């Protein structure tokens, strides 16, 4: 299985967004900015849609589950790479977390319509390459690649 690492070669442009924990009022803002920028490049509509879903779900996860983190988007000539990193709390059982419908979201998050347990499965579904690594108390790193 591939290890999580950033591949800095041949990056045409990098976008960086910090995402705060529990910042529900701004949840979705970073992914919306990313989408609006990528819309201006000559990327196919369905590819763009997949990238939008991947970054949106990642951003929501950072808001409701993490202590805060970041999303980095690497625009390359043949693909988009998305790196999602946070500083904890880490996922206890990654396999379980990847199951459709499984969620550890708080009641507050659920009341706001989040936490359906579809975030990670959706991210995997729309990515051509998906790597997740998580360590308890350290944090979670996710790499997603969407090819054009």
């Amino acid at each position, binding site marked *: 299985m591939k290890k999580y690492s950033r591949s800095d070669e041949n990056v045409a442009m990098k976008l960086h967004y910090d995402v705060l924990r529990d910042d529900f009022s701004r949840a979705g803002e970073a992914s*919306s900015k990313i989408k609006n920028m990528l*819309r*201006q490049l*000559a*990327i196919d*509509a369905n590819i763009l849609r997949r990238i939008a879903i991947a970054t*949106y779900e990642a951003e929501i996860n950072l808001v409701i589950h993490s202590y805060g983190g970041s999303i980095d988007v690497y625009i390359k000539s043949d693909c988009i790479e998305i790196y999602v990193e946070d500083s904890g709390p880490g996922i206890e059982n990654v396999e379980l977390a990847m199951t459709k419908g499984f969620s550890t979201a708080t009641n507050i998050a659920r009341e706001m319509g989040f936490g359906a347990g579809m975030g990670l499965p959706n991210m995997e579904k729309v990515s051509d390459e998906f790597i997740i690594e998580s360590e308890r108390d350290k944090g979670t790193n996710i790499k997603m690649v969407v090819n054009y």
Partner: protein
Amino acid sequence: MKNYWHSVILEKDYCNGCTHCLDRCPTQAIRIIEGKAQIIAERCIDCGECLRVCPYHAKGALVSSLDVLKNYKYKVALPAISLYGQFPEEYEMNRVYNALLELGFDEVYDTAHVADILSVYENRVLDKENVNRPLISTYCPVITRLIQVKYPALIDNIIKLEAPMEIAARHVRKRLIAEGFKDEEVGIIYISPCPAKVTSIKDPIGIEKSAISEAVSTEEIYYKVMKIIDKVEGTKQIQRATGKGIGWARVGGQSYAMGIDDYIAVDGIEEVIKVLESMELGKLSSLAFFEGYACINGCVGGPLNVENTFICKNRIRKLTKHYGMEKPIVIDIEMIPENMEWNTPILPTPIFKLDSDFKKALEKMAKIEEFTQMLPGINCGACGAPNCRVLAEDIVNGYAKIEDCLLLNKK
């Protein structure tokens, strides 16, 4: 290069170069250049937001006037369904329709009757297996154009049905030609609540050519009808729609007429954009139907109407009851795709693309980022672009200069 025809226009003499319209335009199609607003044709989706907010009435809609009646041998009025809500309640719609005959029309066709029939047909389309969810209504042409420019991934969700006005016009024109009229002798005149529908006639989506000849504004008709209506006796029975078709004039009416439960109906272009954003993320894929309108309350909120949109909406609600939701619908137009549907594909019009070449687009994007960082970021609009980022885009595309920023110049 495609030629764009727009109904929304600018009357330069009235424009004082203020920035009201700049910020409201959902596709960032307006710039103020040398003190006058300009509309970028390929970006405009004819929603009419600028027309609505302009304090100087410098924005107008290109519509015909009733003088065009003299150009045709046989003249048919095709009133927008929202006309039902325009007149004070003491004037029954049938009387208004008879007043239209007095104004010089040979025939008035109740467009809402086609909405009755379309409600039945649309329900059948929704019931088919393997349709995309949610299906998106095409009734408001602004929303269809918005999807073409901003949400091309949702094009496959568009239900490719014609609007009632077009189905009605096709039907009437066919009948008249069968009766012996030549095509050019028949004038079918739509009475429009908005510039968007006018554009749909002159530059339609989904078909080659509209069967409608011209469009006049509801406003013009309203005042002409009001002058004569007290003398008009509504003898001829023209009104024939049931409450179902009439309900199409307000947001949600279409879904209500179809009797479906699993729908959302949204009005106001900014709210529609929010929902389309969610839809693009796949959040609404369990929903059966979506109807969205650029105007508040749907077509009753059209900028070429006379009556306040909320008053009009209330009248439509009452009329829906008055004319009845349970009355049988007379299906006198054959419900086949040829009569009801679009026959050419809907293509994306990606107006936000910086360049069709990916590499060049990337280079431009990098430069835009650079300029955006240099600009003050307060989005004042004084340079003539709606915000700092759009100015950066215009600079990179060669349409503006960094010196256009008044704040940077001041320092």
